Structures are given as C-alpha cells and as structure tokens.
C-alpha cells in the first residue's frame, strides 16, 4: 500500500505549486488544481479504507496495524529515534475519510463562497497545506512526527484565520489562536520529551511494559500531552481562541475549526488511549471532568450568542467536550466492560465532523445571502433558501440527537458510556444534550423562522446559494442521514475486537425525551414572531444573561492576567533591564570602541612626512637597542 504516501505528497505538491505560482494562475485554475488534488486524495483515502478494512482481521480478531512506509529520520542513539512514516490503523483510516471528505466538500464549496475574493489562489494553497498537515497528523507513526504535523496544522490554521489580513479583528484572532495553541503545545512538547526520555521511544505503544521511573512519570507526561490536546481542541480554559477564530472565512471554519483540526486533541487522547488506560486512568478521568465542564460551559454560552458563527463555535467546543468525556469515562480497554467510550468518542467524532461541517457550510450560505453574521439580520429565510433550510434542519436534528440521524447514535453511545461510569456524569451529559438541542433550535428558528428583517431584505433580497455551495450541503446532509447506520463498532473499538453496537433504549429514550424537550422549549420561545418569553427571561436573569453573553468574562480574565499582571509586573521591568542595563552595557562598549578608534584614527594623518619621521624614529630606536645590547 505504498500509494498511501501520495496522500501526503499530493496536497503538499499542490501547496507548493499554488503557493509558488500564486497570482500568475487564474483564480479558477488555482481552485480547480486544489480541488482536483483533494479529490484524488479523497479517492486514495477511500481506496485505502476499502483495502484496509477489506483485508480483514488477523487471527486475534483485530485489524492489524500497518506501516506501509517508514524511515528513521533522526536517530538519537539507543532505542530513541524519530521516524517519519505512515501508519494505518482503524482510527487513522477513519480520520482519513473524515478529513478528505470534509476537505473535498470545503474545496468545492469555496468555489462559490470565495468567488471574487482577493487572494483566491493563496486561499487554496493554504487549504492544501492544511489538508496535508492534518492527514500527516493522523498518519503519524510516532508521537514526534505527530507533533511536527500538529504544529504545521497550527500554522495553517493561523494562516487561514488571518486570511483577511487587512481586517484588524482577523489578525488579532489569528495571533490569539496561534499563541494560545502554541502555549498549550509547550505542554505537549514537554510531555513528549518526558515520555521519550523515560520510555526510550517515541512510538505510541512502548515495546516492553514500563517499569520504575517511567511508570511513575508516565501520568505526568500524558497529562502534559493532554494540555496540548486541550489547546487544539479548545477545552476550558484554553478555548478562548476558537470563537475568535470565526473571523476566518466560513469554509475554513467548517474545515478546521469544526470538523478536523479541533478534534486533533481527541485524536491524540484516543491515540494514547492504551497508555492512558494502562498507566494513568486517573489522568483520563480528569480529562473527562475537564471535557464535561467545557461541554456545559460552552453549551450555556451558546444559548445566548447572537452571532451565528459564534453559536456554532461554542457548539463545537461543547461537542468536543462530549468526545473527551466519552474517552475520559473509559475504565478499561474492553468495550463490554467500561471501554465503550472509546468507540463512542470516535463515532461521535465521525458524525460530528459531518454535521458540524454541514452546519458551518450552511451558515456560510446564509452569511453569503444576507452579508451579516448577526441573527438580527436574518429571520424568515426559509422561503428564500430552501436547500440550505432543509440541510440545516437535518444537521440541527442530528446534533440534537433525534432518531434516526447520525448524531442520535453516537451521542447515545456517549451517554451510555457516561452512565456506565457514574449516573451523575450520565445525567449531567444528558442535560447538556438537552441544552444542545435547545440552542441549536434557537439558532435554527432565529435564522429561518421568526420575524423577518424586512427592511434589510427588501434592500438586498436573500437568494439561494449557487450549485457549488449547495452540492456539498446536500452531500453532507445525505451522509448525516445515513452515517448512524454504519456499524461503527465493527471497525473501531477500544481493543480492536469487533463490537456490535446495540442501543440501550432506557438511555436512548431519556436522551430523546430531553432533546425533544429542548426542541420544544426552543420552538415555544423562538418560533413566534415576538420573542416575549425569551426577552422576559433575559430580563429576569439579566446578570446571568449578560455574563453568558460575554462568555463568563473568561477573555477579560485572560486579558487581565496577561496585561495587568504578566506584562506590567514581570515583562516591563525585564524589558527595562534589557533596554537599559544589557543594551546600555553593549552601547557603552560600542561608544568606547568608537572613541578609541577616533583617537587612533588621528594618527593616520595621511601626511607622508609624518609617517617617515616615525619610521626614522623607530629605526633609530631599534639601532640604539641593538647597539646597547
């Protein structure tokens, strides 16, 4: 299966080609090149998946891990070396499908959405770079290679968020995203180094069982790695970059900040899952609590946001929280004995990528139509944009967890895993699922129903998006409709054995009821033209509403800590010391040298007679010395 190297090489070549040729290509041609390359990559990914799963299980009943290509890149001596290679196992193949599908859809969609934008070619070249890095991340054979691509993903995310680099907010958002994730990646890097130093290997699974110090320090290393994952996956309190990242073009949000890059943290935890279970289950449970809190926090905030992309951003954070929780509640690697969450998390990752990309792309169509992100500019759009409306509704139902859409199945598995862990966790997550249903339908009703902003709409009549944009919507909606019926446990499970998904109807029934309740409340509050109930509630709990609207002032706290405490109390004195003491000393040296040089320079008068008299004097002195000696 050597052709899998092409999965990485093709987008990379596409990036180089588009990046170097740049504006010398016509925008259409550049877009076509990017899309065709991604299309070929997608076909290769599907073929890889077909061949991998088609090859069947080995004697022990698992899909064998395949490494079609591997090369030792940096040997460090001993067993420690950094490899570059390609590793195929069930979750990486699953991720290949997710990434290539969403990426291809976004490429097609961008034809319509980005039409006429300045820097169209640049946009496609960055998309190719991102696709390459993300695919490299999931195909990595070892944790260090993963880290390399992890940072590449961060860079391409930075570049794409700051795509509209003339807008101040976009630049600030890109910087914020980069700095926050980079800060978290520091933890990741330290974790990797501890891991590599004590286990003597960068591979995902150490060859021999760990002993002594390695065993003792592994939880620390894994915890630090999770910090990196939390940064990329926008876990509380490192989530602050994701809502701002919505300054980027909407297809980028769909690709990077909803479907692929932000689940890298989840993927990381899943990748290290055997180690978590084997050596640090308590760290794993901490991740579960972090995930649960993040899910709750983001869901509450999402309920009151007025910018539709922000709502979707918080919804993404919340859903990633679900995935992390599902991984965190695992207590063993046997899916029948508390290891269900692993499969559930991956399943949810898969379905969420599809319907969240769909939601974002739908939001993109809406923004394209009304030229605003604010809900106040929308309302009653259903009659203008039927395709967007239907597909958006499918996605909303799916994320709310309504049978028989894909979100129902994956969320049901997550809730079942939570109830296995503790009833308390199960109920909390169920409540958050209800909140999810509520805010998604609030969003849905505010966009497509409710009072129309007639003033704006007569001035600029909303219209259905072009075919290049609706086609991906329809495709993703179709995937969302059927993805739940995929026997996902047959392919991916925590111990690799086939796991037959069966729906626990007590859990499923509860979650269905809660979701229906959430939808019903949303319908009751927002379907009508007047929003008396919603406004009344907002007035009644104005403090809470305001706090939630401002995302509980987390950004302000960060601002305070960084500016008031770190900058003012630490950085400023250090900067002063650097400017005045260190630089001053160097300047002093320079000034002294300068002055001495000037003094010496005066001796170089250029007058030949002065030179010759010195020469004569020197000769004289030498002669006297020779005579005296």
């Amino acid at each position, binding site marked *: 299966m050597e052709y899998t190297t092409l999965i990485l090489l093709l987008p990379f070549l596409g990036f180089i080609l588009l990046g170097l040729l740049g504006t010398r290509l016509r925008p259409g041609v550049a877009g076509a090149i990017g899309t065709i390359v991604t299309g070929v990559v997608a076909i290769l990914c599907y073929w890889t998946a077909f061949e991998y799963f088609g090859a069947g299980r080995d004697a022990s009943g698992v899909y064998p891990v395949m490494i079609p290509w591997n090369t030792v890149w940096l040997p460090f001596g001993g067993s420690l070396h950094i490899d570059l290679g390609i590793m195929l196992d069930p979750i990486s193949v699953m991720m290949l499908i997710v990434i290539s599908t969403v990426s291809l859809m976004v490429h097609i969609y961008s034809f319509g959405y980005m039409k006429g934008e300045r820097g169209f070619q640049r946009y496609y070249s960055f998309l190719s770079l991102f696709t390459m890095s993300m695919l490299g991340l999931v195909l990595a054979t070892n944790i260090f290679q993963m880290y390399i691509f992890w940072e590449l993903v961060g860079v391409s995310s930075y570049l794409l968020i700051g795509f509209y680099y003339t807008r101040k907010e976009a630049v600030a958002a890109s910087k914020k995203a980069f700095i926050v994730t980079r800060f978290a990646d520091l933890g990741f890097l330290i974790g990797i180094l501890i891991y590599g130093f004590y286990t003597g290997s960068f591979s995902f699974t150490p060859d021999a069982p760990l002993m002594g110090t390695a065993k003792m320090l592994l939880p620390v290393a894994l915890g630090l790695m999770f910090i990196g994952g939390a940064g990329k996956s926008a876990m509380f309190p490192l989530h602050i970059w994701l809502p701002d990242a919505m300054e980027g073009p909407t297809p980028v949000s769909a690709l990077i900040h909803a479907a692929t890059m932000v689940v890298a943290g989840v993927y990381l935890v899943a990748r290290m899952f055997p180690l978590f279970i084997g050596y640090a289950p308590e760290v794993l449970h901490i991740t579960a609590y972090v995930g649960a809190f993040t899910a709750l926090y983001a869901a509450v905030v999402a309920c009151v946001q007025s910018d539709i992309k922000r709502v979707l951003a918080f919804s993404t954070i919340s859903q990633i929280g679900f995935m992390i929780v599902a991984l965190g509640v695992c207590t063993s690697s046997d899916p029948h004995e508390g290891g269900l969450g692993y499969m559930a998390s991956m399943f949810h990752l898969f379905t969420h990528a599809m319907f969240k990309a769909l939601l974002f792309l739908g939001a993109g169509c809406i923004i394209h139509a009304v030229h605003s992100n604010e809900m106040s500019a929308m309302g009653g759009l259903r009659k203008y944009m039927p395709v967007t409306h239907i597909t958006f509704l499918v996605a909303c139902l799916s994320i709310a967890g309504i049978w028989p859409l894909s979100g129902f199945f994956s969320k049901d598995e997550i809730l079942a895993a939570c109830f296995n862990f503790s009833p308390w966790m199960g109920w909390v997550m169920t409540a958050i699922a209800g909140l999810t249903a509520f805010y998604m339908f609030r969003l849905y009703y505010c966009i497509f129903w409710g009072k129309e902003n007639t003033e704006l709409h007569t001035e600029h009549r909303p219209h259905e998006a072009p075919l290049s944009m609706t086609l991906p919507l329809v495709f993703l909606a179709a995937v969302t409709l059927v993805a739940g019926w995929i026997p996902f446990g047959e392919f991916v499970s925590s111990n690799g054995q086939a796991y037959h998904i069966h729906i626990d109807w007590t859990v499923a029934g509860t979650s269905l009821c809660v979701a229906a309740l959430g939808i019903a409340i949303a319908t009751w509050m927002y379907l009508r033209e007047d929003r008396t109930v919603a406004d009344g509630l907002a007035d009644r709990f104005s403090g809470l509403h305001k706090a939630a609207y401002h995302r509980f002032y987390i950004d302000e706290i960060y601002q305070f800590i960084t500016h008031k405490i770190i900058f003012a109390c630490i950085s400023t004195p250090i900067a002063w010391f650097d400017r005045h003491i260190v630089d001053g000393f160097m300047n002093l040296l320079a000034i002294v040298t300068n002055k001495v040089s000037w003094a010496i320079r005066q001796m170089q*008068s*250029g*007058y*030949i*007679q002065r030179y*010759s008299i010195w020469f004569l004097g020197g000769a004289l002195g030498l002669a006297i010395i020779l005579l005296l000696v």
Partner: protein
Amino acid sequence: MVQMEYYLIVSTVMMFVGIYGFLTRRNLLAMLISVELILNSVDINFVVFNRFLFPGQLEGFFFSLFAIGISAAETAVAIAIIINIYRNMKNIQVRNLDKMKW
C-alpha cells in the same frame, strides 16, 4: 691615496641631508630631489666598497650602474604623478595630499 672612510663619511652625510630634506621639505619636487640625494649616496657607497674591498670584482659597479638607470625610471614616473597631481590640485604641496587617507 684617500682613506675609504672619508668617502663613506661624505656619502653618509649626503644620505642624512637627503633624509632631512625628505622630512622637512613641503614641496613634492623638493622631496624628490632629497630622494635623489639618498640614492646618490648609496651609489657612492657601492662603488667605494667595490673599489676598496673587492677590487677584482664588479658587483658594486654594476649595482650602481643599474641603480642610476632605475632612478631615472623612478624619477620619470614620479614626475608624471606629480604633474598629474598638479593638474588636479593646482599645487604640489604635500600638505594637501591627504585625500586618500582613511
């Protein structure tokens, strides 16, 4: 016959008079004249040493002969340079020739 040292004293005096002139004259041509004095004194030394110390040989003689030729060449080039300087600066005072320092 005259003692060898007498010739040497004359040449040494001529040499240092030339050096003195080289150090104190401000005119380039005057400096060049001083250089000629120095060269001349050296020529005398060569000839005298040849005559008194190595009478059967001709090294000193030929050295002086060639030195005369070379000093002619040197003078020609030096005067060409001085004329060029004069053309550019309208005088040949050595004090003004510090354009090329540093």
